[in-house]
């Protein structure tokens, strides 16, 4: 009899996850945003600001990309649509890389992903840290998750 309850629990959890996914996708379509779940932390809109510019890119679930660069003080805006890929390192000594490509498949940037805030984190703000090289303690760029 106990095994029946166990199976029932698994089925309920399965149905719950399935329904949740359906609702997530519906919300994404209606609101034009990514509902991020565990294991998908890279998805969504990321942005960072310096004295000279504001850079924002959106990694969509379907692999497409919206990239925007605003240069101050003229607010000269460049918008690019394209795709992105996550290139895994050849071995575990290297971080995976985030490659952003425009529509002609020219590379916008190709940076190592140092860290991304995990789903269950207690941090106040989600951030994504990327770096031009894979060496610890060197230059890095920090992006924040932007409300969509």
């Amino acid at each position, binding site marked *: 009899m106990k095994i029946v309850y166990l199976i029932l629990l698994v089925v309920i959890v399965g149905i719950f996850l399935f329904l949740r996914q359906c*609702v997530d996708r519906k919300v994404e379509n209606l609101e034009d945003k990514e509902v991020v779940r565990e294991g998908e932390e890279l998805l969504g809109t990321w942005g960072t600001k310096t004295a000279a510019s504001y850079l924002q890119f959106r990694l969509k679930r379907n692999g497409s990309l919206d990239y925007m660069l605003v240069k101050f003080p003229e607010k000269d805006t460049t918008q690019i649509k394209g795709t992105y890929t996550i290139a895994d390192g050849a071995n575990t000594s290297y971080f995976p890389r985030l490659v952003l490509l425009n529509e002609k498949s020219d590379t916008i940037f190709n940076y190592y992903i140092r860290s991304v805030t995990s789903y269950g*984190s207690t941090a106040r703000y*989600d951030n994504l840290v990327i770096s031009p090289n894979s060496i*610890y*303690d*060197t230059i890095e760029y920090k992006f*924040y998750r*932007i409300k969509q």
Partner: protein
Amino acid sequence: MRRADVFKIVIAFMVILSSCGSKSNKRAVKAEDLDKIMEEENANAPTVPVRSTLSASEFIQLSECGDISCVQLFMKEKTKDFFYARKGEYYSNNRGIVVDSADAEKIMAFSTLYFASEPSATWRIAHIIHKKELADTLLDDFNKKGFMLADSIRYYATQTIAYRYTSELFPGAVLYYSSTYKPWYGKGIYLVSNWKCYVFEVQWR
């Protein structure tokens, strides 16, 4: 209402609730607030070292020390950039790639400050730099202080040729500059050094 209907409603309610409650989405920031949040995070971030070596004037000042407590007092104010590893050894907090003689990349401190701590030792303080660019910058800093090449000698301490620089602005001070694989007598990280070290020493006559 039948029990089955209640069950369906509960499930639907749970799904809707959980779909709205993505933890990652909740931690997003508004684009217009980004400035404020970045400033706030930077203010709370731990302080990072801003340099990898001492400046020429600091090193000249330090080299006037004749005992350990003087060195420790001097370096105490520089704990943001250097940490005291153990007796006689300071390491720069700035770390990065140093290429060894086999072209292999090591990640290590960009510079160290070693001083003689043995009671019987001839007093010696050496600033040892592991990257040529940084050594060139420091040497350039000494040049700006009027240190000009005087002569070169075979220097016992670094077991190679050392270049001696003197300055009219600092009478009595002699800068010994040498590039070597043996910057210190088999001590600390220099026990088996296979990367080029640039050694700075200021001696007073």
